[in-house]
Structures are given as C-alpha cells and as structure tokens.
C-alpha cells in the first residue's frame, strides 16, 4: 500500500492537478506575474550593479500589464481549467 492510500477510504485519492509537475512553477509565475520566470532579489541587485533598471520595463514593473494578463486568462477560462486558486495564488494540487 502506498503512502497516499487510505486504508479506511481505499477509493479516496488526492485530486491530481491537470498541470504536469514540471510545468506548475512556470505557469504559476505566468498567472501571478505575467512572466514565467521569477525575478529574484539576487538578480535585482545584480541588475542595479550593472547599471540596468532595478526591474525591467515590462510586466516585472507594470501592474496594469499583469492585471490585463490575468483578465484575459479568466475570460478564456484558463485559470479554472488549470484549477488556479486566486486566493492562495497557486494551482490546486
């Protein structure tokens, strides 16, 4: 019996996410930030050290761009199809 199986409720299973595990991080970033790659503090510091803007001129610094992306995703049902939890800001797994 695997760890996930419940002896009292043998038919009860964890709901599997429709998103493969390796896609979950990037797609969560895309929904939350409008970019699949997170901008970490380390790289923000390095950007400044190189004389670049702290955050690039894109969704990394534009709230309206992120807002529009999220609206489009909601209108097309992308979020519900992937079971995205807007409150927790992550995919339901």
């Amino acid at each position, binding site marked *: 019996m695997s760890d996930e199986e419940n002896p009292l409720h043998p038919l009860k299973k964890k709901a599997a996410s429709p998103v493969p595990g390796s896609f979950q991080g990037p*797609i969560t970033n895309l929904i939350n930030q409008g970019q699949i790659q997170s901008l970490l503090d380390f790289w923000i510091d390095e950007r400044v050290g190189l004389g670049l803007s702290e955050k690039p001129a894109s969704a990394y610094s534009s709230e309206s761009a992120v807002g529009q992306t999220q609206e489009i995703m909601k209108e097309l049902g992308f979020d519900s199809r992937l079971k995205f939890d807007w409150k927790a800001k992550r995919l339901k797994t």
Partner: protein
Amino acid sequence: MKSQGRQRSVMMFWGCMISAVEPFVEKAARFSLERLGVTVDEMPDATCCPDPEISRTLGEEVWLTLAGRNLSLANKAGGDVCVICNGCFDTLTKANSELTTDQTMNQKVNTAIAKYGTKYDGSSRIFHVIELLHDIVGLEVIKEELDRSLSGLRCAPQYGCRILREDLNLAPKFDSLITTLGGELVHTKTERLCCGVPAMYADPDFSLHQRTEVKLKEIKESQAECITLFCPACAERIERAEVTLRKEGRDFEIPVVNYLELLALCLGASSTDIGAHLHRVSIDPIVERIMKAP
C-alpha cells in the same frame, strides 16, 4: 524600424529569461547596440511572449491572445520588434503569422484586447537580433566599429532549434557574425541537436545525458574554446548541465558565451561592464584572450 542615416531605433522585446536571469546579456546588448547606432525603445507593458513550450501546450488560445496583445503594443507604437531569445522569436513570429492568416482568431484576439485600447493589425515586423546585426546594421559597419578582435577564438555555434527553419536562413548569418569578429567557426555534428530544454520538462535525465551531455562531449573533442549562442534558454540549460555534470565527475568547463557579450567585448566593453563574473561556468579565459588580442 525607424532609421536616420546610420541611426536607427528598435523596440526591444527582452523576454523573461534575459531580464530575470541573464541581465549580463541585456547589458551587453544595450552596450553593443548603442555603439552601433541603434537606439533601444522599451515595451513597458509587455508580458511573457508567452513561451512556446509550457504556455502554448497548456492553452493555445491564451498563448495566442497574450502574444497578440504583446504585438499590438508594438503596432500601437508604430515600431518593429527585435528579439534576442529564440523562444520569444518563435512565439511572436508564429503568432504574427497565425493572426494574419486566421481571421477568426484575429477577431477573437482583437475583441479580447480592445478594452485595453490596443489592436493587433500586423503592421510590425518581428526580427531576430541576428537579422538586425547582419541585414540592417551590416557586417561592414560592425567591422569598422571594432576595437578588438576574437583573433581566431575557436567558437562552436549553438544555433538553438527555433531559428533553424530553412526559410529564415539565420544559421549562416550567425556564422558570418562570428567570423566578422575574427572568430574561427568550429562546426560539430551535433550543432543542430536540441540543447535539451523542451525534454527537460518531461524527462530531466534524458535531457541531461542524451541531449546536453552529447553536445558537450563533441564540443570538447572539437577543441572549441567556447560555445557561442544567442538563445538564453540554451545558455541556461548548457551552463546548468555543466555544473550538474561536474558534480557527477565529468568536468567539461566549456565557457558558454552569448554572441552579444563577444560583440560588446570587441566593441570596447570591459568584463566588468558586461557582468562577465555572473556566469556559472567562468568565461575569464575568453575575456583574457580577447583583451590580449591585437
């Protein structure tokens, strides 16, 4: 593309990888383009292209709508879009083509983005930075501006699969850009083999050992001094693989350098200017070689 004499301006679509994990490429690009008379205009409301692997696989319509929205920003500003990342190039050129030919999707996308005051009209050209440098700036102008040369540096080109469409003819142009800087091309049998990025999501072990390591082995045997590329995803993949393989006892230590970094160094930038220290696999031997070159 707006031009006045040698002076040009271009809307740069940086994408997420260069901005977030390879800012040294952004710095090298800005330095080089400025030296070559190209002004970079920003796209402040651009989002992820979105990426052709994950986003497109999970939702074709969202992928096309977000790409159409990005393109509409350039249409509105009346500019052409220049892209460094092969993934962004693939997404934006394919979305542009689909939205031009599929009127149903065109209407759907335009309905979705209309409330933001933008409209996709297909008026912007999308070109890879290879095309900008090779076709628009021109090899002669690049040559005239060089302060240093690669003086025979043995470069193994990593084209990246998304620019290998025959109709684009980008690989030979990439080769010419390397030789223009004085680099020696080292061709290998696996140079057109995928770096391993798409397979990484499905089978990391296969991706590492059957794709990236195979390439690294052949490049090492060819005695190339560096791998030269444009695609930030290929760069990230190959550098990370070298670090992982080092832990497994296979030390390749082949510097992975973006062409724009080589160009910036040849145009007079110092290694500090372009953040050469930020590579996972040191590119110091390459930098020293370029600095000492006549």
